[in-house]
């Protein structure tokens, strides 16, 4: 009897066919991705690092036992709300343009006494470790959720950063002759495999360069920031490795963020 029941089950299994996946065309596949992207965004593990980042921001730490509440992200010491969407921006104390994570690293060095070498040693998240600046930038970014991207372009160095960033974006080099633009300067909804490639040179679609970063990456289940994303782009371009929180990356981020100006930033997101 029992045997029969189990066999009955096999029959149910074998009976199929399974409901055929309805999505077929590229547009339908992408619509399907978008629909469930919204589901995933509703409860985003990124929030776990947002909480952690807030604690790291407010807790006295480092050799100088200081919190980051005196860190100036461009709106004055300790002002976090709305700061992220106005970066990268020019900072007179370093006489250069800095993106959010570069500025956080700068504050951790100057206010808390950490060294660049220790922060840059393993700056990207792994399955078992999320570096502090990644958690902090997630917290800082979350405080700009729902605001329009408005990186300043009033200082000459900010304007210069844009033009230099554009050059870096278009720089073709390495064994495969790639530039950032090889994948992200193309019109016409091109894809790598199934992944859509938004054109970051076009203000209409450039928001995709910065939206949802910092992001919880489903592959590996780790929290990553734009520093990681840009570094990985250069790896895939087969170029050498950009220094963590370096000026080159701030310049490139200036170009990308200025192109995306005016679009609403939704806060830390979820990535493939």
């Amino acid at each position, binding site marked *: 009897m029992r045997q029969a029941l189990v066999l009955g089950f096999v029959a149910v299994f074998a009976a199929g066919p399974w409901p055929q996946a309805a999505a077929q065309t590229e547009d339908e596949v992408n619509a399907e991705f978008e629909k469930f992207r919204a589901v995933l965004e*509703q*409860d*985003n*593990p990124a*929030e*776990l690092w947002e*909480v*952690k980042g807030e604690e790291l921001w407010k807790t006295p730490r480092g050799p100088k036992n200081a919190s980051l509440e005196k860190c100036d992200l461009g709106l004055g010491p300790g002002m976090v709300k709305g700061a992220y969407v106005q970066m990268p921006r020019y900072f007179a104390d370093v006489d250069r343009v800095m993106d959010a994570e570069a500025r956080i690293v700068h504050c951790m060095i100057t206010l808390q006494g950490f060294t660049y070498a220790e922060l840059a040693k393993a700056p990207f998240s792994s*399955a*078992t470790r999320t570096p502090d600046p990644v958690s902090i930038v997630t917290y800082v970014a979350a405080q700009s959720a729902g605001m329009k991207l408005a990186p300043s372009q009033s200082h000459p160095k900010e304007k210069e950063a844009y033009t230099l960033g554009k050059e870096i974006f278009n720089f073709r080099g390495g064994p495969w002759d790639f530039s950032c633009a090889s994948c992200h300067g193309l019109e016409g909804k091109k894809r790598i495999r199934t992944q859509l490639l938004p054109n970051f040179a076009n203000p209409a679609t450039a928001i995709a360069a910065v939206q949802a970063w910092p992001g*919880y990456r*489903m592959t*590996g*289940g780790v929290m990553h920031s734009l520093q990681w994303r840009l570094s990985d782009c250069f790896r895939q371009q087969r170029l050498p490795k950009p220094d963590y929180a370096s000026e080159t990356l701030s310049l490139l981020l200036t170009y990308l963020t200025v192109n995306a100006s005016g679009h609403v930033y939704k806060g830390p997101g979820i990535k493939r």
Partner: protein
Amino acid sequence: MADPMKIRATLQGDVADVRVLMAHPMETGQRKQAGKAVPLHFIQSITAQLNGRTVFSADISQAISRNPVFAFKVKGAKAGDKITVTWKDNKGETRTDETTVRAGS
């Protein structure tokens, strides 16, 4: 020490919509790091209580995604009720966090 969960419980009518984020690697035992397999490490059991009474529980495998996310719904909840969630993993580590049910917007 495991990182805290993030729990949200929002009323929709008299149903509390409870959403839980957990920080856990959920290692399958298959992943390799520096050539060595990372040992199996995953949450096995979850229990949720409303004002001390168990309403939802689960036994799960390592196939649940890293940093697990669950949502469930409890009828008859009121604003201010206490929701407690506990997980326990295969290494015996456990973590409990709680939140209060909030009125929906």
